[in-house]
């Protein structure tokens, strides 16, 4: 019997560590931002993650769900999650108060946004709705190391002006000249002066040279098909297009198989994939 027993971790992969919510901010009617830190300081100091990775969050007695890390990976004091009130765990989280204790496992995911490869290239970030959340850690990282990157553009589509997330950050970036942001809403209100309609239609206006550009896409499942068509029209290379996928996850560590698409597991092989990796995976997009 050849059993791999290398990292003989006494801790089972299913045991969460205790963490505390230190700050809660309401970002939109349905989303809240949570600052979280592990109770154990050492654990918090050693908690390193890469942009695009996710954690599994337990509310004790209630359940567990995966969420993307939304903060700058260089921030070692705490990390941020932005959560939509969607079901059992997320709604319970929304009911919680600052100081509440939760459980965290992770970070998980071998597939992350390749911020190293992107250096000295243009980066085009396309987000739909909640898809902005996973991009946040990448954007914040890039903005901190802005000089390493060339042109940066964010294309962000939201349902309506109210649902635009991270308004503070966006406002701050808009005032900078080294990053351009296009926001489009499906349902504008009276005050809205920006773009209207799905964000896909902003893509033709992008004039980054394809061979020199990385594209990152994240949004609801329906969005991917259309965005990819547009990107292909622009001749962006599939190996330079990165997507973050979402599937049902129970374990986050490649055992429960729920996030299985073809020969990939979103939790361990993703959640970020290059388009090339999944180009022929039926059901992926």
């Amino acid at each position, binding site marked *: 019997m050849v059993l791999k027993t290398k990292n003989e971790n006494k801790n089972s992969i299913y045991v969460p560590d205790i963490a505390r919510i230190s700050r809660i901010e309401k970002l939109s009617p349905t989303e809240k931002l949570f600052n979280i830190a592990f109770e154990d300081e050492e654990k918090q100091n050693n908690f390193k993650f890469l942009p695009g990775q996710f954690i599994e969050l337990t509310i004790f007695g*209630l*359940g567990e769900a995966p969420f993307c890390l939304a903060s700058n990976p260089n921030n070692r004091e705490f990390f941020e999650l932005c959560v939509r009130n969607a*079901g*059992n765990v997320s709604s*319970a989280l929304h009911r919680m108060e600052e100081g509440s204790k939760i459980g965290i496992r992770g970070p998980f995911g071998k597939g992350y946004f390749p911020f190293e490869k992107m250096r000295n290239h243009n980066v085009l970030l396309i987000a739909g709705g909640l898809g902005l959340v996973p991009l946040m850690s990448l954007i914040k990282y890039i903005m901190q190391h802005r000089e390493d990157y060339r042109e940066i553009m964010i294309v962000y589509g939201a349902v309506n002006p109210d649902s635009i997330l991270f308004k503070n950050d966006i406002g701050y970036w808009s005032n900078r000249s080294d990053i351009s942001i296009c926001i489009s809403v499906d349902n504008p209100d009276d005050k809205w002066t920006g773009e209207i309609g799905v964000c896909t239609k902003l893509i033709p206006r992008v004039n980054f040279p394809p061979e020199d550009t990385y594209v990152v896409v994240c949004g609801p499942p329906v969005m991917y098909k259309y965005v990819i068509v547009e990107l292909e029209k622009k001749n962006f290379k599939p190996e330079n297009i990165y997507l973050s996928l979402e599937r049902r996850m129970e374990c986050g560590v490649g055992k429960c198989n729920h996030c299985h698409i073809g020969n990939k597991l979103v939790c361990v092989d993703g959640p970020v994939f290059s388009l090339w990796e999944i180009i022929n995976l039926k059901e992926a997009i």
Partner: protein
Amino acid sequence: MSKPKVGVFGFTGCGGCQLEILNLEDQLLDLISAVDIVHFTEAITEHSDNYEIALVEGSVSTEHGVERIKKIGNIAKIIVAVGACAVSGGLNCLKNLYGTERAMELVYGDKKDWIDSIEVKPIDQYIKVDYYARGCPPNRFEIVDIVRSLIVGRKPEIPNYPVCVECKRNGNTCVYEFGMTCMGPVSRAGCNSRCPNSGSGCEACRGVIDDPNVNAQKDLLARYGLTVEDIMEGFNLYNACNKVPTVENKNN
């Protein structure tokens, strides 16, 4: 967290569902301390009209019952239908098949006029039901799970997969192999497949799943020599009030 106030109410049925609550044994004391039971005819004398959660057993079969269930529906914030009678009318609905008038005459003869009896209906025909603890009798652990979920603030998880899933988790040999028939493949799990565990076929006391493969079930039962009438009779045992898909699919 303040303790939710719970009322347990009985309508037309056998009392077995309330009994299953009393049968919680080790968990009964925990239940009593987790919630405030303010109304439970079978077990306590005090009764109160101040409750948030109503666990309702039995189906509605009298004019008086209609008034009572509507009152409960007005007071309670959350209504849980407990047991087949409350959920789908259960066995009581066999009376509808026979006909209320005829049934009254058969049992009470010329004295039938004194009887308050109307067509049997499940409670959701009169009020909005939030959760269903199915089964005859219901699974007492599921009742606890519903109450517990309501306390911690999540939606109770009530399976929508067939009994076969639980049957296999329990490692049973399928009763079809013994030449018996079973409603398991189209019936809703949650009972821990207790009938197949005991060597007899599932009777669909929890009703059918959302998307049952009725045609396959019909073919299967036909392979075991059952006629459409037999199949319908079996189905009607607990589901006569419902238009079960089998009825609609009879001719295709």
